[in-house]
């Protein structure tokens, strides 16, 4: 389903061509797909609508830049705005002038608070701090033991009071203990609660008032759906939130809830959880998150990188050759080299939606390790052979294999890949010509 949507978006952004300014019709057609992409990603319905309306107002009438087709430009605007929203504010925990710094972790049931508390403790320890974990979840069976186990795993002491029934009293007592033992950070793990549970939400507010945390962190499951706005809105209104941590991003959820929650709370994402293990806490990258939510891979990054890296003149020359179907093995080698300049290949492939399917025959050629081999093979050919690969018969293949220290199979594979590439590039070339744009044959679609 995502694939289809992504494909449609891709098609639409490349079909829109020409013209000097973005027309309302162009913008509409792209934003319709963008809105669907956001909804598929679980961005809240109202948040998605408001977002798309804002983009529309900003986009219509804009000058189309030289490098991008109008459709691409709209998507680029969308992407930039998403990045701005997700990364707009400063992103760090606030440390107290006079220690200890108090951090309170809140959220719904099963969001990942306890695990995240231990992950934060591990991170703080690595930075030379001495965190104390505090077990105030007295509701979930064995929640205190759970914190003790993960605390032990990261080597952070855990404060708990056996038999206690009042979480606020436990939190208060932990502060005295922290001061006595010289802890400079106190991480309080609160019980999970439904935001609609007034009693427990009020308890959390009382907890806040009692311990005056420097950071109240809302832990949000990346798989959350439409309810994310109601949830975050309620935590923000009743308890007050300073920052967010998004968990379970190691799965395949598109994570639109992150946008919903950032919109509703106006608070930054501090970290993301990327695993059950206690080292699975990473800095947040707004650009990656934006691409993930849009479900487009890093298409835009790819376009930008391509434009930066591939010398415009060389690309024009290449295109000329393509039109005359003169693409040779020399050019193939050039292409592979430019592709290589753009960065690690698997990350590039990840940026190209649908590449796996379209260019299956190229998969071998763009594997980082075999690139060197490909170059060696091409280097062992005579200029004639590079220009007209069809003259490479059995005995030439043997010679080339020997000369490049590879096998005949390697040479065969390369020649096959070259044919595939030629076909693919020719198709792209034709498409680009029809679209009256394109100076870079490897621009995908």
């Amino acid at each position, binding site marked *: 389903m995502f694939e289809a949507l992504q494909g449609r978006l891709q098609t639409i952004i490349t079909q829109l061509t020409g013209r000097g300014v973005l027309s309302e019709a162009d913008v509409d057609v792209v934003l319709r797909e963008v809105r669907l992409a956001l909804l*598929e*990603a679980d961005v809240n319905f109202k948040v998605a609508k408001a977002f798309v309306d804002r983009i529309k107002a900003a986009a219509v009438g804009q000058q189309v830049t030289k490098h991008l087709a109008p459709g691409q430009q709209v998507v680029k605007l969308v992407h930039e705005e998403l990045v701005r929203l997700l990364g707009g504010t400063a992103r760090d925990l606030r440390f107290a002038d006079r220690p200890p710094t108090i951090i309170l972790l809140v959220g719904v049931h099963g969001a*990942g608070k306890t695990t995240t508390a231990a992950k934060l403790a591990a991170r703080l320890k690595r930075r030379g701090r001495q965190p104390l974990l505090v077990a105030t979840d007295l509701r979930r*069976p064995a929640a205190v033991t759970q914190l003790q186990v993960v605390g032990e795993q990261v080597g952070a002491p855990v404060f708990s009071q056996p038999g206690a029934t009042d979480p606020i009293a436990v939190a208060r007592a932990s502060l005295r203990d922290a001061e006595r033992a010289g802890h400079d950070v106190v991480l309080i793990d609160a019980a999970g609660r*439904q935001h609609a549970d007034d009693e427990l939400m009020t308890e959390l507010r009382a907890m806040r008032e009692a311990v005056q945390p420097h950071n109240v962190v809302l832990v949000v499951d990346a*798989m959350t759906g439409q*309810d994310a706005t109601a949830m975050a809105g309620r935590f923000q209104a009743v308890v007050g939130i300073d920052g967010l941590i998004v968990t379970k991003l190691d799965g*395949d959820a598109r994570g639109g809830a992150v946008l919903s929650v950032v919109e509703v709370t106006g608070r930054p994402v501090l970290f993301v959880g990327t695993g059950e293990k206690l080292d699975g806490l990473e800095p947040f990258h707004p650009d990656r998150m934006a691409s993930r939510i849009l479900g487009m891979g890093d298409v835009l990054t790819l376009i930008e990188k391509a434009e930066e890296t591939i010398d415009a003149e060389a690309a024009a020359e290449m295109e000329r050759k393509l039109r005359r179907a003169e693409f040779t093995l020399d050019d193939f080698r050039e292409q592979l080299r430019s592709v290589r300049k753009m960065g690690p290949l698997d990350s590039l492939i990840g940026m190209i939606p649908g590449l796996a399917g379209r260019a299956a025959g190229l998969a071998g050629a763009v594997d980082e390790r075999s690139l060197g081999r490909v170059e060696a093979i091409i280097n062992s050919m005579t200029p004639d052979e590079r220009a007209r690969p069809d003259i490479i018969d059995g005995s030439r293949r043997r010679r080339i294999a020997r000369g490049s220290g590879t096998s005949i199979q390697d040479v065969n594979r390369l020649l096959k890949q070259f044919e595939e590439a030629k076909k693919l590039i020719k198709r792209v070339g034709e498409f680009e010509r029809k679209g009256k744009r394109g100076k870079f044959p490897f621009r995908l679609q």
Partner: protein
Amino acid sequence: MFDRLRAGLARTREAFTARLDQVLAQPLSRAVFDELEAALIEADVGVPTASAILDRLRARRDVRDARSVRGALREIILELLGEAAPLRIDPPPAAIIMLGVNGVGKTTTIGKLAHHLSRQGKRVLLAAADTFRAAAIDQLAIWAQRVGCEIVRHAPGADPAAVVFDAIAALRARAIDVLIADTAGRLHTKVNLMEELKKINRVVAREMADRPVERLLVLDASTGQNAIAQARTFKDAVEVTGLVLAKLDGTAKGGVVIAIAHELAIPVKLIGTGETLDDLQPFDPRQFVDALLPPTP
């Protein structure tokens, strides 16, 4: 029972109904359909299923005014949800494996279900086959103690399939009616963890051949469209026999189960409406839809 469910779903219903009543006050127009579609999407039904529902609604000749839309919409959703599907655990002994991604409510559901079955006079045994998560075994043991049922447990880090194997041996030796196995939460994208799950499942399939076995996938009602991928992958791995929709006591609507029933034909069997022993209900599609779209305004 009916009242409890309605109470549990009251908030869900209020939000949806308020919206719907507004909509129904208008004449039947494109805006009515747009609003209905919006309401479905906001209930996590998802765009494709919401569109499918709306297409069916538009195709119905009997839908002429805003009033008749309500009844037709209910019927269409009911059709997608299919008939009520009760747990199949007779004749004893039977096994139930609880599955799902991290933190959805598997262990808690087991506690509640064990309680429910014990109260029916069944002899229940729990298998602590989440040997991975910190204190997961202790958590299940506390539920066993609350319910007053037996538990088979190994040390943390032990092979979960071995725990299940031992539990099945105990089931035979002690004339147990129902074995319920807890499993570690696992994201469906983790290939090695799904393989581990298949192994557990193979042990159950082999040792409980010709016995009733339920493989229940627990979903968190607040989960969005990712629940579809979860259901698809878990189904492919171990032939999920039913869903449990946990945490329906919040404001989340759990509409994604309509999409799952529609696309994957997995029935919802149980719903969770809280953290205590009594907060578990059999899923009744009619009540679920009634709670979303009450039959009388």
